[in-house]
């Protein structure tokens, strides 16, 4: 068996193995990850903070939230009830809630009643401490106030209303919802809105769940409108965002994949006028993609939809190696020797693979799960496609070509020959210098953008609905909070209380609307002791005075002594977080308490209506055990630091590539080969500046690939030389397919991918246009 056939056999064995692996993985069920949040890196050094972020995201985003709006509360409630029934019947949701269990406010008073002598509001603490509590006035007001409904204690339990103040000060009502007609009703925009919330029966990121949820919602909405044409519906929830993101990425993948494939086949046929290169090109690409898929799933245990979108755009690059071989075949004419042809292009292909690997290798080091997955996919895919050229193609492309290579590329060839004979290297450098001068003002215009929305773009329609729901209900879907850690539950509470003092000025001038914290429901042990001391000092120290005071107001005589007895009986009382957690009253706020961690305990203080996040961060700084967590800001900071780091790495990569090129071509020619790519990067940045397209981390990542891919054309051109028209055909084909794929990527619905694609499109296009510079350097190798 000849070595050619032996290698083809090896390829076949590999292909079968890869195919079997793919089949096995698919049979087992590959988890297609569609959660865009999974793309975000872990930003917090503190793992407790990361867990808190996850927990809050679940508390806020796990449920789908609907508001059903109508002119009247009763109509809204009816419509809301019917809408909920409709959702329930569809079976897409595990739990649909519309009707409320009546919140028993007496239950609230009953929970705090035994502990009331340990509890005081901040205002009452100050008043008691300063002796300006005006107990007589308080008693009168408690007796005469016309509006003494709400969560209050009876006069006999709390004659001075100090306990009422505590109950009224509980941050229960951050929500603007009120119970009416058996549902929670919000009022705003001239309508009444009934709240319906539903938990999807399955993960919000599961495709089937998404489809069922969407179908059920649409049907319920149709029924709603049939019965009440004026009714309005607002929706929000992770499942809707996830569905939109998945649908967008899927259509991207189909569009880019089909576009790349069709374009590649058309170009191949246009140049080679034969179906054989088409079939072989497809075979190498398919092998590359299958290997990349199997490797990615094997390493990561799943594959992200975004990786597939990017993978679709890789088709144009993966076919390049085969194209070079087809070009050599085309150029050799009747004297074709499959192995000799391969040997001739091998150094060029190896160089091309090395530079691409360098570009993608940089992505592999990036801390983004998404980018490192993309990099792995690309490296394996390109490597496998490259390997196919060496193993498979010589066996299947043994017969010489019959088509005249010159006819395929007559026009561009004439152009390049003209370039070669009329454009001296000095002119090239002069032109390069001029281009650089033109680019410089563009650099100065260049702005950067590190917003997290680059990675997670949300459909404006859904965002607008979420904003309205937020405004109507006061619900927060925020990802900014204060993490409080301490050795014991009590130190956590004490730290929260220390924080409260710092937050007071921010609340006063409305830079922060309010906040929720466990310490607002359960004061620290020390605070409880202080409160009790204040009660004693301000209310119970003088028994006779207390008796006289209550008698003067006309209260029954035994009341004063009963108060004193109750106070003394509660001497050893202490309200604990455990008590609070055990009560159903804490249910809406339990996610604030993170509980026992590896070291100590932790809780979340959740600010609401934040207008000035910077001031909040500033206020929180320096309190021991307390840290400010702002996921979007952390991600943006990370984007920024890696954008800057990436710029440095880009410069380093240029040096590395220059070293590789220098090793083969020598210092001077190496520089000439690299020059078009260097200019491409410089001009692309200038173009972005002029067009006010901000530079992002993904621009830098794109430029990394411009380096890896763009230098290939100069290499191929240099290796083949213009006289071998077929080489030129190969280079043009490579550039065409690559530009097509990345050009399509620029249309992706994800800003990160489209920025990536745009960078590659602009950069690679410039690199291709300037690649003929290498022809101006004397001493071409003879073809």
């Amino acid at each position, binding site marked *: 068996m000849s070595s050619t056939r032996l290698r083809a056999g090896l390829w076949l064995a590999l292909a079968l193995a890869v195919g079997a692996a793919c089949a096995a993985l698919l049979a087992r069920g590959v988890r297609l990850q569609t959660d865009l949040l999974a793309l975000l890196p872990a930003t917090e050094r503190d793992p407790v903070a990361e867990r808190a972020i996850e927990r809050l995201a679940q508390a806020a985003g796990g449920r789908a939230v609907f508001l059903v709006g109508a002119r009247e509360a009763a109509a809204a409630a009816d419509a809301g009830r019917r809408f909920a029934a409709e959702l329930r019947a569809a079976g897409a949701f595990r739990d649909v809630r519309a009707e409320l269990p009546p919140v028993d406010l007496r239950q609230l008073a009953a929970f705090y009643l035994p502990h009331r002598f340990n509890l005081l509001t901040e205002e009452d603490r100050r008043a008691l401490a300063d002796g300006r509590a005006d107990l007589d006035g308080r008693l*009168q*007001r408690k007796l005469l106030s016309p509006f003494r409904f709400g969560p209050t204690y009876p006069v006999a339990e709390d004659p001075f209303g100090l306990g009422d103040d505590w109950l*009224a000060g509980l941050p229960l009502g951050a929500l*603007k919802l009120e*119970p*009416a*007609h058996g549902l929670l009703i919000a009022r705003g925009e001239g309508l009444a809105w009934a709240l319906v919330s539903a938990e999807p029966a399955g993960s919000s990121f599961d495709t089937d769940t998404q489809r069922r949820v969407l179908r059920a919602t649409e049907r319920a909405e149709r029924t709603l409108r049939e019965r009440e044409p004026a009714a309005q519906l607002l929706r929000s929830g992770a499942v809707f965002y996830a569905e939109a993101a998945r649908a967008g990425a899927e259509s991207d993948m189909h569009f880019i994949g089909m576009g790349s494939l069709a374009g590649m086949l058309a170009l191949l046929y246009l140049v080679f006028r034969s179906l054989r290169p088409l079939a072989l090109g497809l075979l190498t690409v398919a092998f590359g993609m299958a290997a990349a898929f199997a490797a990615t799933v094997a390493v990561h245990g799943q594959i992200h939809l975004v990786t597939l979108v990017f993978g679709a755009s890789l088709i144009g690059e993966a076919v390049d190696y085969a194209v070079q071989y087809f070009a050599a075949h085309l150029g050799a004419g009747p004297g074709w020797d499959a192995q000799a042809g391969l040997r001739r292009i091998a150094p060029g292909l190896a160089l091309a693979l090395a530079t691409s690997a360098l570009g993608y290798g940089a992505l592999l080091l990036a801390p983004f799960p998404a980018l490192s997955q993309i990099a792995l996919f690309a490296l394996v895919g390109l490597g496998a496609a490259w390997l196919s050229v060496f193993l498979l193609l010589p066996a299947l492309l043994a017969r010489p070509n019959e088509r005249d290579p010159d006819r395929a590329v007559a026009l561009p060839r004439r152009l390049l020959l003209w370039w070669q004979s009329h454009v001296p290297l000095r002119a090239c450098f002069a032109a390069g210098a001029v281009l650089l001068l033109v680019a410089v003002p563009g650099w100065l215009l260049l702005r950067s953008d590190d917003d997290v929305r680059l990675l997670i773009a949300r459909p404006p329609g859904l965002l607008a609905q979420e904003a309205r729901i937020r405004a109507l209900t006061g619900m927060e879907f925020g990802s900014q909070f204060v993490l409080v850690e301490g050795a014991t539950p009590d130190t956590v509470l004490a730290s929260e209380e220390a924080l409260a003092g710092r937050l007071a000025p921010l609340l006063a001038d409305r830079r922060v609307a309010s906040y929720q914290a466990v310490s607002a429901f359960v004061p620290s042990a020390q605070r409880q002791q202080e409160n009790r001391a204040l009660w004693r000092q301000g209310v119970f120290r003088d028994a006779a005075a207390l008796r006289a005071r209550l008698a003067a107001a006309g209260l029954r005589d035994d009341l004063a002594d009963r108060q004193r007895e109750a106070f003394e009986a509660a001497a050893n009382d202490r309200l604990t977080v455990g008590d609070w957690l055990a009560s159903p009253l804490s249910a809406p706020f339990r996610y604030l308490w993170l509980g026992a961690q590896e070291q100590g305990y932790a809780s979340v203080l959740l600010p609401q209506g934040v207008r000035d996040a910077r001031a909040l961060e500033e206020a929180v700084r320096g309190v021991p055990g307390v840290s400010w967590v702002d996921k979007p800001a952390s991600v943006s900071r990370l984007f920024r630091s890696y954008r800057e780091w990436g710029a440095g790495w880009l410069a380093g990569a240029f040096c590395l590539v220059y070293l590789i090129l220098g090793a083969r071509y020598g210092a001077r020619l190496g520089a000439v080969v690299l020059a078009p790519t260097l200019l491409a990067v410089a001009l692309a940045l200038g173009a972005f500046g002029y067009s006010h397209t901000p530079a992002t981390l993904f621009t830098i990542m794109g430029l990394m690939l411009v380096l890896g891919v763009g230098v290939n054309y100069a290499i191929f051109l240099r290796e083949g030389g213009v006289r071998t028209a077929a080489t030129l055909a190969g280079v043009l084909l490579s550039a065409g397919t690559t530009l097509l794929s990345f050009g399509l990527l620029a249309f992706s619905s994800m800003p990160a991918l489209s920025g990536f694609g745009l960078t590659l499109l602009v950069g690679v296009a410039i690199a291709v246009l300037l690649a003929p510079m290498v022809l101006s350097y004397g001493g071409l190798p003879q073809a």
Partner: protein
Amino acid sequence: MRRLSLARIAGVAAACCAAACGARAAEPDALAQIGAQVGSHAVVRAEFTQSRQMAVMKRPLTSSGRLVYARRLGVLWLIEQPLRATYVLGEDRIAEVGADGVRRERALREVPGLAPLGRVLRALFGADTAVLKEHFEVTLRGDAAAWELDLRPREAQLAQFLAGVQVSGGRFVEAIRMSEAGGDVTQIRFRNSRSASAPSDEELRLFGEAAPATRP
């Protein structure tokens, strides 16, 4: 915000009235008539006497003062005896102004269950039958000249505090009797009710409506 809310109240009231007028039964019709009759006053000023019977008190607790009901803004409750204190029941907040002139405010929405109560109280003082029907089973006795409404809470939320309410009057609301769930009873009588077209500047200030130079 305020304008939106008013539009809402007006909208709800109009829709309720429309529904009531179209109804077959005579009672809703009479109810709507009473609502329209009392609601025709933009501002009502009256003197009140309140008597409260509470289990913890040796004797009933009486207080007296002035009431200002402004259909657009809410209720001012100015106690003059036995102490001076002013309570403001606005659309979305309640406020208390003590004898020292210090104003303590709180949004109704901050306290669960208080927002509907605020609306109910305002509706009681203004005999806003449309809103009352939203929250109570309403039984009407008498006619438009001398009527009495017997109200039983529809919602458990309200029933936690309020066993029942009786409101009576003619052109104006003349008496309100509230029975709390705990057994305490509050009786309010109004005298010298007068209608006016607009609140005074001082009243506007108490409602927190006008913007004198001293307000931040």
